């Protein structure tokens, strides 16, 4: 198994690591059992534009790189544009992932959606096309 140069770059020099104090939306997906947890923080302006995105991730090289890339891609986007970011978009931006790591790119998409869902909940709005996160992670129990 080998990672692309882009993946290694985003793993070694991850963009947007950290938290956003008082974030507009926070989403945590994955679970420790399968070895990946992603938490995405979004700062969304009154105009509905994503001004900032940060993440924290427990996981393998691909999990870190996809978190980094997904937060890069989402910055400056409107909510609707953000919803169009799929695992495929993230994967392509990273020049691909080894087959066993594709689930990591799915997690990145899910984490973005979970953060948007949280934002919608907090502001009592509905975002068209957004479904509730499958599983809101919170502990390592089965």
């Amino acid at each position, binding site marked *: 198994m080998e990672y692309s140069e882009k993946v290694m770059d985003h793993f070694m020099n991850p963009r947007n690591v950290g938290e956003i104090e008082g974030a507009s939306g926070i989403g945590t997906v994955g679970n420790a059992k399968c070895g990946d947890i992603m938490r995405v923080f979004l700062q969304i302006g009154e105009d509905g534009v994503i001004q900032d995105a940060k993440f924290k991730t427990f996981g393998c090289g691909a999990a870190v790189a996809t978190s980094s890339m997904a937060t890069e891609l989402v910055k400056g986007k409107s909510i609707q544009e953000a919803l169009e970011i799929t695992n495929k978009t993230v994967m392509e931006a990273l020049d691909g992932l080894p087959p066993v790591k594709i689930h990591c790119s799915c997690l990145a998409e899910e984490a973005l959606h979970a953060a948007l869902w949280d934002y919608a909940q907090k502001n009592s709005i509905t975002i068209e096309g957004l479904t509730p996160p499958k599983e809101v992670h919170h*502990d390592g129990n089965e």
Partner: protein
Amino acid sequence: MQKHNLYLDNAATTPLHPDALAAMMPFLTERYGNPSGIYDYARETKKSVDEARRQIAAGINAKPEEIFFTCGGTEADNWAIKGAAEARWDKARHIITSAIEHHAVLHTCQYLEKRGYSVTYLPVDENGTVSPESVEKAIRPDTALVSVMLANNEVGTVEPVSAIGEITRKHGVLLHTDAVQAAGHIPIDVEALNADLLTVSAHKFYGPKGVGALYIKKGVRIAQFMHGGAQENNRRAGTENVAGIVGMGKAFSIAAQELPGEYARVSALRDRLISGIEATIPHAKLNGHRHDRLPGNVNFSFAFIEGESLLLLLDMQGCRASSGSACSSGSLDPSHVLMAMGIPHEKAHGSIRFTLGRHNTGADVDALLEILPPMIARLREMSPLYEDFITGKGQVWNTAKK
């Protein structure tokens, strides 16, 4: 960042000893005779294979005629277990093994289950130790074979095989032990172990890859595994890997000779690394038995981080190690060994194995102790599990089931 050149994965494989290579070279060049022939070329290769047989036998207190060469540890494990089971099919179809065996043993047992045998997988305690009492309790009138490894490849725990052997002898059950990780690193005496079958593999003790041996105690009947020619006293067919066998014999005799000194030296390095990690890295847990442990094995779980990402950071610094995390194995489940020891999933994902060998020095240990703590700190900095732990918010770390 300064780049190191650290090989700390000696349990995966070891570099070929230069003297073993030198011993092999003639058999890769001018001494090509097939040992089965009757002319001079054949006689000289036959003699060298038998010399290697004596070297292996001497290192484990066996007789040369009890040593059978194979194409590695995996073949020897397969042969021992399938061969013993098959030879006893009429009377005894039960096998006992442990949950922490190498896949060469576990997958062989699973295969036999599909063929109508029943298998008991003994649990281990939190140190990875199989209790001899549990072996005795599991023995049934139809038990054909017990297979428990001499030392575990992941966590380094040395198993009480000699005590298990007393029990199998008492009950007239065969005992196989996978000594692949032990051979050349801790003393082995097949008589003291009460072993009937014992597996070794050359590439774990500075011999070549693709060659191993099965010890079969005199008088023990097991079915043939490789069918064909009459090689290996008619018990293992196939033209001998002469160069490999010669290299294995040479490497093993060197390892046996150097064992007392190397055992002490490498154990001291291991203990220095263990105490160094425990002193500098919080939330680090040693996996495996602290004392009944292979001299070169150091296995830690670092809470809140995932093993593959640590391996990548280590690799960028020129340090080669391995991990029990699922992500580094290509499956979704972390190491079956750590799971059997009751280590929660997330700690198993954060496990790293460093295995020291004859080339490692105190400087290597110091170099690792210098680069490791900042890497762990960096990964924790980006870990949501660590954040939850610090803020006391999440229970991720505390609630995982055993």
